[in-house]
């Protein structure tokens, strides 16, 4: 067995709609090692969630089609598994927590039953044992076990997200996918949930894929970062490499857009323009139309993800040895 929990190789996912083909994920490679938390950062429409759904083999089909590639989860290619086997993988090997904890929970079941249900689907025969496990999990995520008879509407948003995390971790998955887990929460509650996620990662040795648009959250929780733009990974490295030795112009643009790095009252530096239409991606680098460093070569061919200095970046400007981003000079 390999050392890596997850290996995504050359994944391509398209949504074929009446209006045309949406190129959501375009040939990406992702590796997550044991106990690692990888942050996948990007804006709306970058393909982050589609990537996550592919790992669970849950891309809605139609219109979604996994065109090519392989996803090796814990040594098994999940894209080749028959549906019955895949059901066993979900929950046991990989679990997902979603952005909105209200819609992820069943409003007419108590939270204890919901955790127990997931335990029973994955092999526990005795309902009593499953309910005990549910109470144990509630304590783990910081909710008193005495509340296991509560319904979701009786809980606050932060507590609901704790329940969702408890369900996801109840079967000790090797990989946890968290899709914007704190976006719907207040900052103080977000801080509590992030702290909990870090603690559980240490305690259960779970690897994690954390999807977010918030670089602050990434800096807080992740070991490694992959920056995604228009269905491709444009930069990948350790947290320190990507934050302190930024290589891709898009990543630089994200940092510049953030208000809290700038002095008060100073004009922010947004990235000009908008994300390209995923039905009609430019021929070369998808970021070229918005990039302040674009030269002719950028529009000719899609740049490959290559090692420049300390980590991986997909930018042709680095063919020039003297090229530096403004942020670094």
């Amino acid at each position, binding site marked *: 067995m390999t050392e890596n929990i997850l290996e995504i190789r050359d994944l391509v996912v398209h949504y074929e709609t009446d209006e045309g083909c949406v190129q959501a994920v375009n040939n990406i490679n992702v590796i997550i090692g044991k106990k690692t938390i990888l942050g996948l950062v990007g*804006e*709306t429409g970058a393909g982050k969630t589609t990537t996550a759904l592919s790992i669970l083999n849950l891309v809605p089909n139609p219109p979604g089609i996994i065109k090519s590639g392989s996803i090796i989860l814990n040594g098994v290619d999940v894209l080749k598994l028959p549906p019955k086997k895949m059901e066993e993988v979900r929950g046991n090997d990989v679990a997902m927590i979603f952005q909105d904890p209200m819609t992820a929970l069943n409003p007419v079941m108590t939270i204890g039953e919901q955790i127990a249900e997931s335990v029973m689907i994955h092999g526990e025969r005795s309902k009593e044992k499953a309910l005990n496990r549910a109470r144990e999990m509630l304590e783990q995520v910081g909710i008193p076990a005495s509340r296991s008879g509560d319904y979701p509407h009786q809980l*606050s*948003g*932060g*507590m609901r997200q704790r329940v969702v995390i408890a369900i996801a971790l109840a079967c000790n998955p090797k990989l946890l996918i968290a899709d914007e887990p704190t976006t719907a929460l*207040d*900052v*103080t*509650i*977000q*801080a*509590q949930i*992030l*702290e909990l996620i870090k603690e559980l990662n240490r305690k259960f040795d779970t690897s994690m894929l954390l999807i977010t*648009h*918030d*670089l*602050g*959250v*990434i*800096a*807080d929780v992740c070991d490694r970062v992959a920056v995604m733009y228009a269905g491709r990974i444009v930069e990948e490295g350790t*947290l*320190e490499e990507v*934050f*302190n030795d930024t290589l891709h112009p898009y990543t630089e*643009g*994200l*940092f*510049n*857009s*953030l*208000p*809290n*790095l*700038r002095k*008060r*009252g100073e*004009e*922010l*530096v*947004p*990235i000009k323009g*908008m994300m390209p239409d995923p039905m009609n991606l430019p021929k070369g680098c998808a970021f070229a139309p918005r990039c302040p460093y674009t030269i002719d070569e950028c529009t000719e061919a899609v740049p490959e993800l290559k090692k420049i200095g300390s980590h991986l970046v997909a930018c042709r400007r680095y063919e020039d040895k003297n090229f530096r981003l403004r942020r670094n000079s």
Partner: protein
Amino acid sequence: MEKPNNVLLEVQDLKKYFDTPKGKLHAVDGVSFTVERGKTLGLVGESGCGKSTAGRCILKLLQPTAGRIIFDGEDITNYSNRKMRRLRTEMQMIFQDPFSSLNPRQNVMQIISEPIYEHKLIRGRKEIEKRTLELMETVGLASRLINTYPHELDGGRRQRIGIARALALKPKLIICDEPVSALDVSIQAQILNLMKRLQKDFGLTYVFITHDLSVVKYFSDDIAVMYLGQVVEKAPADELFENPLHPYTKKLLSAIPLPIVAKDKPKRSLIKGEITSPINLPDECRFNKRCDFRSEVCLERNPELQEVSPNHFVACARVQEFM
């Protein structure tokens, strides 16, 4: 007559209670502040602190339970809807979700020009279309989009429509309720820059309601932090960030995830528990159950906002010990 001072909006001891089956819900409970012309007040707090209710009371979209709202020297607290109608041209609102706040069956032209028709500001189709195009240019919308519908546009452009519509009546005051929270960071920066530019060009006064402290720091002159219906700290923006005094403000600032990786990055201190129910509140500090500095005095009464240094107001019984 010229007003003796430069204050556009004054809110005095504003209260808004809602009757619920469980008792009185104190959504806004004695909030006071003033906003000068051309300035921005940031109203910050978590869900349920009453910041949006306060914003709606100022515009009289909700009738306050008690207190006074003085807009441009006029006490509008008890104005009827008919009397308010005249003032609607001077006070407008920008909403959080640019999708649900725009009528999906109207095109850009109809959405932006509707308030102009409604208030009969300009007459004649041609003239109104000219004004609409002018507004679109002001907010950075290409004129070719004039016949498109909201669903055809992305979030950033939709928010620009919301801004153009708010500007259509040449207001003095705009209440912005989480105007960039639903947008991606790169688009968020574009909209914030636009709003800042409009403020300079048209001398707008903003009340900026948000939960995002980093946005508010960038944008506001003064900041008021709300907790359970009350302002617990109020100060000029720089002062509040450099020298926060209320334990809640400190925790709130520390909770912001900073997008930096460094050895000397400040460690965050977590706030314990969650916001308590705003129904039937006892007469004690509303933050005491979550506060690290809770003591006897905190339970004696609900502390009032007091000026601890010039323009810096704090509502905490133990504030002297933190200075």
